[in-house]
């Protein structure tokens, strides 16, 4: 493959890919007088349009993506992103809407927000939703702020938040940003919350338990109602991290599990593309008791239409500008309307079928630390291969040679050398079998030819990269080399 230079390396003075129309107002000569103007922007690119197009087209070809193949990144729900969703979200009536436009001129947008709030309430079994949070982590922060506001009102915001030792890193980080000290709850031999440990740690200084269900092992917290009861008995709140909703849609609802507050990732369960890292959306759903604290503005029904309502004195305020990642919300609505009630249930059922098919097919080759039944994802480890000197990293990198994206690695932290596999519901039998076959070959290669794993990948655009050097001597932007 051609090595694609940085744009700065092909830039040259005077090249252009853009022209403005001639200025049609009378030009004022001294218009730049009176403030600090920059002479130039040193080293800013100057290239032609063809160069721009080839540059990004070539760069795009160095990416693996869902449109290309199987992407079993556990906890990330890399399902297919329907193309019609992109089409409708691109309608100019949505994209060109100014967020401060008069309400009468953006009724379609407000209706979309309200519809998605209502549908998420039904799917999650909650009483109200806010769509403002930009991503899962901001949803967590928002959710914990609601809890804190409610507790503060009753006199004591409390000091601690509990998270299981299997939790996503964002959970403790979000709790900390909300002013809480984090305490870990142990997992039991099944990989689920240890009820005795929870009961021991749960007291009137604890604001909430943040729990992912099914948890990061893919295991459903069978005792969720008991967990909720332990937390509620001490006046705490049960926060559910909805990152794994893809296992549950239409089958069971967090609201019915006595969850008080939940965030959902539209870029996971509701099919919006991840865009190489974002944008996503992290709507937060609550039970009635937390509704008064939701961020403002809220979308309300007004007569035949919709309006924005700011008069919520107990609200925690806003967590960002405007109303959230609106176009992501549009795509989620398109997805919900396309699938309907049966399709939404089918998401979860087939995701669970696919995951169990992979688990069953690989369980004699790779170690499962927890043999508890799992739903939409399963977590193997490198325990067996480790004895041959092969790590989860080597396995992951070798998968790249088979034309596949590796699973999530080294998470959850309670499984040493983890390989976390989430196939999602959209994959074909052929894709699942290709992955199983690759993993089967790799298990054999680990025995017969471990070197081929340790030096993988062999066929990618670049080979194994030195991440330690990158962190030790950070080069985080291009700098012109001085000519000597």
């Amino acid at each position, binding site marked *: 493959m051609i090595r694609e230079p940085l744009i700065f390396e092909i830039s040259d003075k005077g090249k252009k*890919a*853009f022209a403005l129309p001639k200025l049609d107002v009378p030009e004022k000569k001294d218009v*730049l007088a009176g403030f*600090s103007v*920059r002479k130039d922007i040193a080293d800013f*690119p*100057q*290239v032609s349009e063809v160069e721009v*197009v080839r540059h*990004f087209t070539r*760069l*795009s070809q*160095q*990416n*693996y993506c*869902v*449109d290309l193949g199987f992407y079993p*990144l556990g906890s990330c729900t890399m399902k297919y992103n*329907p193309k019609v969703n992109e089409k409708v979200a691109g309608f100019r*009536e949505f*994209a060109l*809407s100014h*967020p401060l436009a*008069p309400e009468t001129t953006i009724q379609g947008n407000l209706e979309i927000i309200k519809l998605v709030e209502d549908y998420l309430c039904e*799917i999650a079994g909650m009483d109200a939703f806010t769509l403002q949070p930009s*991503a899962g*982590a901001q949803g967590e922060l928002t959710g914990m702020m609601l809890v804190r506001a409610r507790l503060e009102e009753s006199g004591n915001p409390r000091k601690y938040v509990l998270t299981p030792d299997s939790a996503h*890193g964002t959970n403790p*980080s979000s709790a900390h*940003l909300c002013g809480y000290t984090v305490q870990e709850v142990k997992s039991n031999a099944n990989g689920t919350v240890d009820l005795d440990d929870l009961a021991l740690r749960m007291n009137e200084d604890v604001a909430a338990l943040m729990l992912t269900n099914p948890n990061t092992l893919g295991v*459903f917290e*069978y005792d*969720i109602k008991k967990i909720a009861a332990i937390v509620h008995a001490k006046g705490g709140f049960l926060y559910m991290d909805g990152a794994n909703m893809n296992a549950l849609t239409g089958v069971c609802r967090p609201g019915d599990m006595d969850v008080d507050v939940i965030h959902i990732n539209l870029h996971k369960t509701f099919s919006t*593309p*991840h*865009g*190489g890292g974002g944008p996503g959306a992290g709507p937060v759903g609550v039970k009635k008791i937390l509704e008064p604290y939701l961020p403002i503005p809220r979308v309300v029904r007004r007569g035949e239409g919709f309006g924005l309502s700011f008069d919520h004195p107990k609200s925690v*305020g806003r967590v960002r*500008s405007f109303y959230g*990642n*609106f176009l992501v919300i*549009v795509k989620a609505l398109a997805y919900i309307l*396309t699938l309907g009630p049966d399709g*939404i249930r089918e998401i979860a*059922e*087939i995701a669970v079928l*696919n995951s169990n098919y992979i688990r069953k097919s690989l369980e004699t080759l790779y170690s499962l630390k927890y043999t508890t039944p799992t*739903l939409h994802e399963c977590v193997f480890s490198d325990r067996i291969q480790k004895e041959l000197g092969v790590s989860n990293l080597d396995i992951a990198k070798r998968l790249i040679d088979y034309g596949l*994206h590796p699973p999530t690695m080294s998470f959850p932290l309670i499984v040493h050398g983890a390989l976390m596999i989430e196939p999602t519901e959209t*994959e074909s*039998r052929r894709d699942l079998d290709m992955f199983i076959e690759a993993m089967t070959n790799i298990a054999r290669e680990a025995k017969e030819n471990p070197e081929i794993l340790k030096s993988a990948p062999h066929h*990618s655009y*670049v080979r*194994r*990269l*030195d*991440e330690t*050097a990158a962190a030790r001597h*950070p080069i985080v932007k*291009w700098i012109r080399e001085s000519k000597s």
Partner: protein
Amino acid sequence: MSYISLSENDKREMLARIGVSSIDELYGCVPDELRLKRRLRLPVALSEPELVRQFERLAGKNSFPGMLSFLGAGSYRHFIPSVVDYLSSRGEFLSPYTPYQPEISQGTLQVIFEYQTLVCQLTGLDIANASLYDGASAAAEAVLMANRLNNKAKILVPRSLHPQYRETIRTYIKNLGVRIEEVGFTSAGALDLADVARKLDKDTSAVLVQSPNFFGVIEDLEKIGEFAHGHQALFVVTVAEALSLGILEAPGNAGADVVCGEAQSFGLPSNFGGPVLGFMACKKEHLRQLPGRITGQTTDVDGKRGFVLTLSTREQHIRREKATSNICTNQAWCALRATIFLETLGHDGLREAAIHNIQKADYAADRLGRIAGVKRKFGGRFFNEFVLELPREIPKVNEALLAKGVVGGLDLGRYYPELGRAMLVCVTEMHSKEDIDRLAATLEETLR
């Protein structure tokens, strides 16, 4: 319509291999009492033609895009070259995850590296992150970063900062022992330096300033920076209209320690407020406290240049509660669009576009200011927004304008009751002289 790829036969065979007779059996680990015994109450599934019709119906309820608008206030309409939509809609950019596996993510990683470089060039700082959610949350992150850097509790925040940025900062700091003190503005609409001097003390962590500020006025950054540094406070500059960076002196050159803001102007439509693009850059000595992802250059085992996510010991997936921020998913695809946009406009295009904004806004301010009873509220130099004082209630004026297909400027009454009948007008390179004259004529008619 569904997006399932299994046939009935596949399902049967897969169940057989697993050793269960039904999918229901796989849910045996969910207590029966928690299983939903009914269908979800959602509308029945739509086919693609029905779906498109449904969204055409919803889109039809938005009359705004057909109107002539002069709204800005943190969301701007600029020209977006065709290559931006064309290239950014490629599945290779749209459908991958965060580049955790660098060997098969060099496209995304190199784009972020170029993006970081462009942000550094524009802001005049050393290091930029890979994006944040938006300008408002970026300002909040900057405030928290300043507090981590010097452990001081007080932040000076101007009243001329975007009201939604102020609200967001307030939400973020509420539970963290950081407090804000508001600094006023002068009759020219600029930051009140005397008020800054009064409020700056040894407990001040940072002085935050927006430039151009919410009223469109360009601030004297150098002077404000000297004040801040004179009291060992950090100097944080936020930019809500990133296009201004194409012509205004880079804040980093004027002494800023941290520059953050909103880069929606770089290749993103208004999108009804989101997705947009938060950015942040800082001096290299503050690198360890910068929130968000960072891409760095390295080499592979063959010595070939490549890029990886780096310095992740700042981040939540490694440091958990000790991380610099809880951010995980960011706005990477928006940063891609900004990168394509900036590389397409290039050095001269960006500068010329910025100058067109200044020229057109200047013409508009002049033209509108000649209407009887209308005057510019502030004397300060401005980029593409300015405040008008009108002889009549703004909501009434805007209603009359709207009836004629014109969306006037933002009514500042709700945010700044002290300003009286004031309207924030935004004019960009997208407005023709004819558009501006139409606003003037319609306003004249309305006020008559």
